[in-house]
């Protein structure tokens, strides 16, 4: 009985005084030797972490007693006979691999919380907003949620997320984008390593604005913007975008309905073509007319239509 208690107590002591390596919130290594790891344990840890993150696996090699690992252009080596560690060519005597130093050499981020070393379980490479789509490319697990509140869309960390050289803990906001009052997240598409948010606006146009075709057209949200230029009597509208997965269908349907009525009334052709001056999810169209005197009549018709 006494022996059993000693064993249990020893295990508890080891556990309490051991150091832990976490992948986000999951323990992946317990070490009773602090951050100084044996070569094999260090290599296994890295290989396991890279696999979980979906990173390229490191290159391993050895020359006699000198073992080395290369990843991302950096090298960590250890000579088990002479007990020398080499970090990117800088050597020093050591009984093992100092995990903190080795991670720094490889440029791998981590945070220390008491006896825990936490590696990120999501690594965001880029967050970008192109018109109505926000795209997040990442490695590891999806540990991010999108919230919309007030005039912003926020991205909140749901794990240990590395982004822009900063490690974010759970609950922290790591990015935000402004949004218009009538704009909201219409759809979230989750692919491996990619999150795509499609923003959509409610359609509420009540006026029409005619502008001569130019490269610098500013589209107003609450208006039907009609660009015009000399041409062969046709109306051009943009098709919906396949990547939006239906989020832009309501705007497309509304623009098409108006364009069809216009074409029917004035015997114009209706052409579908994605022009750069007709941004996705906007109430815009381009009219090409031979007789510029017709423009007033067209405008009057459209104003009656949207009123």
């Amino acid at each position: 009985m006494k022996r059993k208690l000693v064993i249990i107590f020893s295990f508890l002591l080891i556990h309490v005084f051991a150091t832990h390596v976490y992948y986000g919130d999951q323990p992946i290594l317990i070490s009773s030797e602090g951050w100084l790891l044996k070569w094999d344990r260090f290599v296994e840890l890295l290989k396991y972490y890279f696999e979980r993150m979906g990173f390229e696996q490191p290159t391993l090699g050895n020359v006699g007693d000198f073992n080395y690992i290369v990843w991302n252009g950096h090298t960590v080596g250890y000579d088990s006979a002479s007990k020398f560690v080499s970090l990117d060519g800088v050597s020093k005597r050591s009984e093992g691999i100092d995990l903190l130093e080795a991670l720094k050499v490889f440029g791998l981020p981590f945070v220390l919380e008491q006896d825990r070393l936490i590696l990120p379980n999501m690594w965001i490479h880029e967050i970008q907003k192109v018109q109505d789509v926000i795209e997040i490319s990442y490695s590891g697990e999806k540990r991010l949620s999108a919230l919309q509140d007030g005039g912003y869309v926020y991205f909140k960390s749901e794990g240990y997320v590395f982004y822009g050289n900063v490690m974010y803990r759970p609950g922290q906001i790591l990015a935000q984008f402004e949004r218009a009052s009538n704009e909201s997240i219409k759809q979230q598409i989750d692919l491996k390593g990619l999150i795509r948010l499609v923003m959509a606006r409610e359609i509420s146009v009540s006026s029409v604005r005619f502008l001569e075709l130019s490269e610098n057209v500013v589209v107003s949200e609450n208006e039907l913007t009609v660009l015009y230029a000399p041409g062969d009597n046709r109306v051009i509208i943009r098709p919906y975008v396949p990547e939006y997965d239906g989020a832009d269908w309501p705007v497309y349907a509304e623009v098409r309905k108006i364009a069809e009525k216009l074409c029917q009334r004035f015997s114009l052709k209706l052409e579908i073509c994605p022009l750069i001056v007709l941004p996705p999810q906007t109430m815009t169209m381009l009219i090409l007319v031979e007789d510029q005197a017709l423009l007033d009549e067209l405008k009057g018709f459209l104003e009656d239509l949207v009123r």
Partner: protein
Amino acid sequence: MKKFVLVLLIVLSAQLVARQLTLFYLDDKLNPVSVRQNVGDDSDLVKTIFDRLASPPNGLKSFVPSDVLRAYFFVESYLVIDLKRGPISMLDFTQERFFVHQLLRTIFENFSGIDAVYFLVDGSRRDVLTKMVDVRFGFARHFWSRWPVEGEQ
């Protein structure tokens, strides 16, 4: 008689092996005109489409320039077409649009498994093809499985 039957059989088997392409050219009023042409079964169909569209039959026109295809590849149900900037750089607004319409209409007609087409120019993603046509997103089959201009002909 025996010789005639043999020739007939050869012609018939050649017809059976050949694949037919439907190509879309334009008349003087820019209305589409479809033309069916035979191609060999082992032809590179995408390249053949570009070559044939660049050489319209008499009386028809095309805005597809010759030697404009740089590369192409299929990704699941998408076709990515990489174009050379040089041959398309001189297209005006109308030519640019109808180049796209002709090409997409022909591709979607002949490749039933393709849902969308993407364009690259000189190996890179661009905002516009030459000046006005937005190529940042895919071109969906839905719109080019028929001619994308409706109304008065």
